């Protein structure tokens, strides 16, 4: 009984092997026995039939074992496959019909893919990574050495070469063990603990079905990673899935993984995306509630849970959570619910408003530091980042106090800093609430482009202009009044500050001098006082005035937004916040508030809340710069350090705008690639907000509109471009297409001829022109219905051709749009093929076929055939045909065949080929890798060309091309 190892082969007598008393082979014993091992032995004895055949007893024994250990191995029996009798009729039918459905689906797909095949063959092959370098094969000699070293020490017959250096180390370790330990460990730890997985999948050229399959697979990978507890990896794979096709389910899963990782912000974002796509998604609501709970936004969490319960009143999870959160909320704030909410917003407002001043004070104090080092100023000595932190700590402290009711205690900033410590502790619970925000500030503080710095800017300016008494446009009396006002404001005496500001305003207006900037600042400051006092309506009035004087100025907008928000005029507040964000998207406070209001508005108005909004004013792109210009103008006489600081900020801001522009444009381009023209158009529209002068955004949007059959809009965009750049060929071309879509064939023909006037080589335009002129004639004669169908068919062709043309332009133009180039692979290439049908049979229809031919040529080193190929190939299409497949070998055979066969006969063609070859992708790389001999070949070709003469190129052209070929 004691023997633990259970032999599987039951060759010899079982009773002997197991030494089981025969009495144990009994119903009663088996029913009582709890030793599974023993029972298993009994079962084996019974099954073997050694002691006789007892089917009933065997069955009982089996059941007993199953009861005790359902996973026991002895219970595994050979079973025949399941048949219809193992299922209910319904199940069986379901299994069969499911399979049949799949089969028909597959057959249909097959047929479809057969039709598509030739077009999509070339797609992904173009993006393949290079062939693994064969020279990187393990050097066998080295292995031998390794092998010899360790052969003697291995006890298991390891007759394979040891590749890994690690093993060498291991061998060395016999000499110095300690050293080895750390070495090997270091090696293992040096392996990246987090694998680098691309976050995006290149879907170039994939069909919708491909994308769906990929997206599903990535989702499955995410699910599996989630199941194994690897949430980081799960998030990565969900992100990849989303990059292919965004679906609510994947966002939802991602949110869950992020919750597991306690990445609340992203989880919140993802939940909101799900709810954008599927409002009322229970899981997403539950998850958002969880997130809000952890972010301590109890109110919103409760709202979400209530929504869940309104749909599923029996959801126990939601109920439990709701209770939990309500309890938490009560314990945190003994105040009643709605009040708590109102107050919370107020607190945040105060914080936002005061953070600016906190900063202002700090800086002021830094200035004063020379004379007064005594009080807590040491803290202020800390560099920007710390100062910022302090300022925040303080304002938070203030916020906490404001809640307690004593608002007027900050007479001295040093004093407040002392208090800060205590206040901070008190409001620790709030801390985490605003942590994200604070971090945001700190981070941006480093970059010296922080939202806060911007908010505080006018303040600094104001205080300084008052304190320093140096030159502003304000008359001295007004300046004095203003500085007094500022002082009073800082000390918290808002009422008195209002009086001072009012006096100043009165004085300035009575002078009648035109200084709208200063007046605007005064109004804005008075608005701040009103806001502090809770006099929201006056605050809004002042903000309005300030904005009349200086439209799109940041501070009054922010203040008006806050006032509106506290008056529960959410829509107006939302508009103002959005305007602020248009001016400067980095203002965290505005961002947060806008998000918060969005939620409130959704609650209030339902999913269609946007429709009820008044239009958001579009901020001209120049405003941002203008604002800064104003700043640097007035600060001209200030200490130089500040000036530099501001300069930097200005620069940063420009750069930021440029960055953002680029990013948006790229996003737009990506959308175009994916065929989602609507989104692309939106992106480009956003680009335009940033920079109205940049034509590419307009031309690209025009392309999108063309694809969307919105010809009127496309035309408008092209018109705009042509106003700025009267010879933009793309704009002309697209306008022509738009006109064609609008059936204004005359105008279309005109535009096409303009395109040809600028560049007579645009084949597409030529073709289009022919078509359009035909249509012009056709227009007169044909009936309306007929005409329409015809028109429609042609527009489809047009669109692809528009793309084609664009690719070429992208390939030749050198603006920063290289990212668009891969798009060409996505586009099936009907155009060249069509032309090839018309012209020559042997012309390669697409990059894939061309590549195949090149491969064949390379294999045979058949220069003559290559020359033939090049003669029939239009040089202009070379970059497209080569796509990214250009290799040294290919280049060489091209050069050789050009030299030996073409240059003599037709130097012009040879030149053209050389020229367009240099435009191909990877050309530079390939060129850099050419050997000396190969370079000589190129040199020879050029020499040959310079000797012969053609009207297609001049010697200068040749020289410049030579430079391109680095000769």
């Amino acid at each position, binding site marked *: 009984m004691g023997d633990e190892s259970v032999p599987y082969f039951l060759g010899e007598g079982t009773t002997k092997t197991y030494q089981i008393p025969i009495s144990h082979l009994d119903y009663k014993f088996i029913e009582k026995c709890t030793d599974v091992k023993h029972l298993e032995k009994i079962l084996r004895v019974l099954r073997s039939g050694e002691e006789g055949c007892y089917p009933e007893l065997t069955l009982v024994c089996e059941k007993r074992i199953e009861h005790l250990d359902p996973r026991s191995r002895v219970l595994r029996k050979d079973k025949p496959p399941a048949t219809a009798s193992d299922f209910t009729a319904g199940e069986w039918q379901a299994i069969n019909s499911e399979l049949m459905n799949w089969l028909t689906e597959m057959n249909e797909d097959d047929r479809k893919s057969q039709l598509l095949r030739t077009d999509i063959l070339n797609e992904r092959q173009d993006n393949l990574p290079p062939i693994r370098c064969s020279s*990187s094969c393990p050097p066998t000699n080295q292995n031998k050495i390794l092998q010899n070293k360790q052969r003697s020490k291995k006890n298991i017959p390891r007759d394979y070469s040891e590749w890994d250096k690690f093993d060498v180390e291991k061998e060395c370790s016999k000499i110095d063990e300690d050293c080895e330990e750390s070495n090997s460990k270091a090696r293992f730890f040096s392996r990246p603990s987090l694998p680098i997985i691309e976050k995006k999948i290149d879907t170039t050229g994939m069909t919708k079905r491909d994308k769906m399959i990929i997206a599903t697979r990535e989702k499955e990978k995410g699910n599996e990673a989630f199941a194994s507890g690897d949430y980081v990896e799960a998030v990565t794979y969900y992100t990849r899935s989303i990059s292919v096709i965004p679906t609510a389910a994947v966002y939802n899963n991602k949110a869950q993984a992020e919750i597991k990782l306690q990445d609340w912000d992203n989880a919140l974002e993802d939940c909101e995306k799900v709810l954008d796509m599927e409002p009322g998604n229970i899981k997403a609501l539950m998850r958002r509630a969880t997130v809000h709970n952890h972010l301590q936004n109890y109110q919103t969490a409760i709202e979400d849970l209530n929504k869940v319960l309104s749909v599923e009143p029996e959801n126990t999870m939601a109920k439990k959570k709701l209770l939990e959160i309500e309890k938490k909320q009560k314990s945190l704030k003994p105040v009643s619910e709605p009040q708590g909410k109102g107050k919370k917003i107020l607190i945040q407002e105060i914080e936002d408003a005061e953070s600016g001043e906190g900063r202002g004070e700090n800086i002021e104090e830094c200035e004063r530091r020379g004379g007064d080092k005594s009080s807590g100023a040491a803290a202020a000595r800390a560099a920007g980042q710390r100062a910022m932190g302090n300022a925040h700590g303080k304002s938070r402290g203030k916020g906490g106090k404001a809640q307690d009711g004593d608002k007027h205690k900050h007479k001295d900033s040093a004093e407040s800093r002392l208090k800060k410590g205590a206040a901070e502790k008190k409001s620790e619970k709030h801390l985490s609430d605003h942590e994200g925000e604070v971090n945001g500030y700190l981070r941006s503080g480093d970059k010296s482009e922080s939202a806060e710095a911007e908010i505080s800017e006018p303040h600094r300016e104001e205080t300084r202009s008052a304190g320093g008494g140096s030159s502003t446009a304000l008359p001295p009396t007004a300046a004095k009044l203003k500085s007094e006002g500022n002082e009073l404001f800082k000390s918290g005496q808002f009422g008195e500050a209002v009086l001072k500001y009012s006096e100043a305003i009165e004085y300035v207006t009575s002078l009648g001098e035109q200084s709208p900037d200063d007046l605007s600042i005064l109004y804005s400051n008075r608005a701040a006082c009103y806001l502090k006092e809770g006099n929201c309506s006056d605050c809004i009035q002042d903000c309005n005035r300030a904005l009349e004087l200086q439209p799109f100025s940041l501070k009054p907008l922010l203040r008006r937004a806050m006032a509106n928000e506290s008056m529960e005029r959410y829509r107006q507040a939302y508009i103002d916040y959005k305007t602020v964000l248009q001016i400067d998207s980095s203002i965290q406070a505005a961002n947060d508030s806008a998000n918060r209001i969005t939620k409130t508005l959704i609650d209030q108005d339902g999913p269609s809340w946007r429709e009820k909004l008044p239009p958001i004013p579009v901020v001209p792109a120049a405003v941002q710069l203008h604002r800064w210009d104003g700043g640097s103008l007035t600060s001209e006489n200030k200490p130089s350090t500040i000036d530099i600081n501001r300069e930097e900020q200005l620069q940063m801001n420009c750069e930021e705008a440029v960055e953002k522009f680029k990013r948006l444009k790229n996003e737009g381009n990506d959308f175009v690639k994916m065929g989602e023209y609507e989104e692309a158009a939106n992106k480009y529209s956003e680009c335009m907000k940033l920079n109205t002068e940049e034509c590419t955004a307009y031309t690209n949007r025009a392309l999108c509109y063309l694809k969307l059959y919105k010809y009127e809009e496309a035309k408008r965009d092209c018109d705009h471009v042509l106003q700025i750049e009267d010879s933009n060929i793309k704009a002309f071309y697209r306008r022509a297409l738009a006109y064609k879509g609008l059936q204004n064939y005359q105008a279309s023909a005109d535009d096409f001829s303009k395109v040809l006037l600028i560049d007579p080589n645009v084949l597409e335009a030529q073709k289009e022109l022919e078509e359009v002129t035909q249509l012009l004639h056709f227009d007169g004669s044909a009936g309306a219905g007929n005409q329409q169908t015809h028109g429609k068919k042609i527009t489809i062709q047009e669109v692809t051709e528009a793309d084609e043309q664009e690719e070429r332009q992208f390939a030749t133009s050198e603006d920063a749009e290289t990212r668009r180039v891969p798009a060409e692979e996505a586009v099936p290439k009907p155009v060249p093929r069509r032309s090839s049908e018309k012209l020559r049979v042997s012309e390669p229809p697409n990059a894939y076929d061309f590549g195949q031919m090149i491969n064949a040529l390379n294999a045979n080193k058949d220069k003559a055939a290559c020359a033939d190929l090049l003669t029939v190939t239009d040089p202009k299409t070379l970059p497209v045909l080569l796509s990214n497949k250009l290799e040294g070998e290919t280049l060489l055979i091209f050069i050789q065949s050009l030299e030996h066969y073409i240059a003599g006969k037709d130097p012009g063609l040879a030149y053209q080929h050389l020229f367009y070859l240099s435009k191909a992708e990877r050309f530079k790389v390939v060129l850099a890798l050419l050997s000396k001999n190969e370079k000589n070949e190129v040199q020879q070709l050029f020499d040959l060309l310079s000797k012969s003469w053609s009207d297609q190129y001049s010697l200068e052209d040749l020289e410049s091309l030579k430079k391109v070929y680095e000769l």
Partner: protein
Amino acid sequence: MSAVLGAERPQVVSHVQQALSYTVFDCKWVPRSARLLCLGSAARGTGVLQLYELNGARLQLLREIEKPKPIKCGTFGATSLQQRYLATGDFDGNLNIWNLEAPEIPVYSVKGHKEIINSIDGVGGLGIGEGAPEIVTGSRDGTVKVWDPRQNDIPVANMESVQGESKRDCWTVAFGNAYNLEERVVCAGYDNGDIKLFDLKTMSLRWETNIKNGVCSVEFDRKDINMNKLVATSLEGKFHVFDMRTQHPTKGFAYVSEKAQKSTIWQVRHLPQNRDIFMTSGGSGSLHLWKYEYPAQRSKKDSEGCEMGVAGSLSLLQNVTLSTQPISSLDWSPDKTGLCVCGAYDQTVRVLIVTKLNKI
């Protein structure tokens, strides 16, 4: 009680049985279709390649191609979804790639090995695995070679024993870890029980172990992720599941082993739609469906502070016996969860449906 269990557990239904006139060595679903391929050896010593289409409850023969040498193994792993070229290894050591629509001449052909190619695997195609499409072959001549279909004649990597050493028969190869453009590993199993893991990025032997019995089949749970699990089956009926996430400097990878049947486990194949479910096929004509369950913590620190893996546990979901002869090949449909084909030495190919896999 068994009725209740039956309702929850997956069931294996033998949907179609098709008798063949030759010995089938490998069968494969053609990706994104309802067609399947059977590869084998005809009685007169030639190679046979049959293309069937699943048509309701029967298999319709679409095409039969005869080749001079018996074909041992095939893969679609390195081809694009559009082309769906089949790579095969034959008894003579040739690696061929066929366009099934024009199978007269191979699109790629190389005499890769001196002796039979026992096993083949591909990666980088079908949208599975980042990086270049590559094929790995393992042969009786003891070498494991990696091929890129774009490079003729010579392999891109060659893993062989040092001259003068006795050559072991490589029975099985598999790709894994292809989660980005650089990373990729090849795992090879040999007749003496050696399992070797070659890192193609660093071109080094990353890990090796010996499971005492000949290794019949190895497979990663997914090729295109940071390597997660590896299943290796052996000659005497045991199989090992290695947790490949955490490699201990000396102990290597943690594993759990399980004995499925008394006979050789010929094949292991993971469900493409769920990496934690896999099927093993046995020498006694049986199939076992397993599920791997992860431990609460997948790694822990040993006494010296090194990370070491913790193996999970295995549970048997279902087992059936289909034949008296070994089931030598097994393939899940990549497109339809639970659809599966297996070829056995009783010269029969069977299409199976495994139910309720998505409810596990």
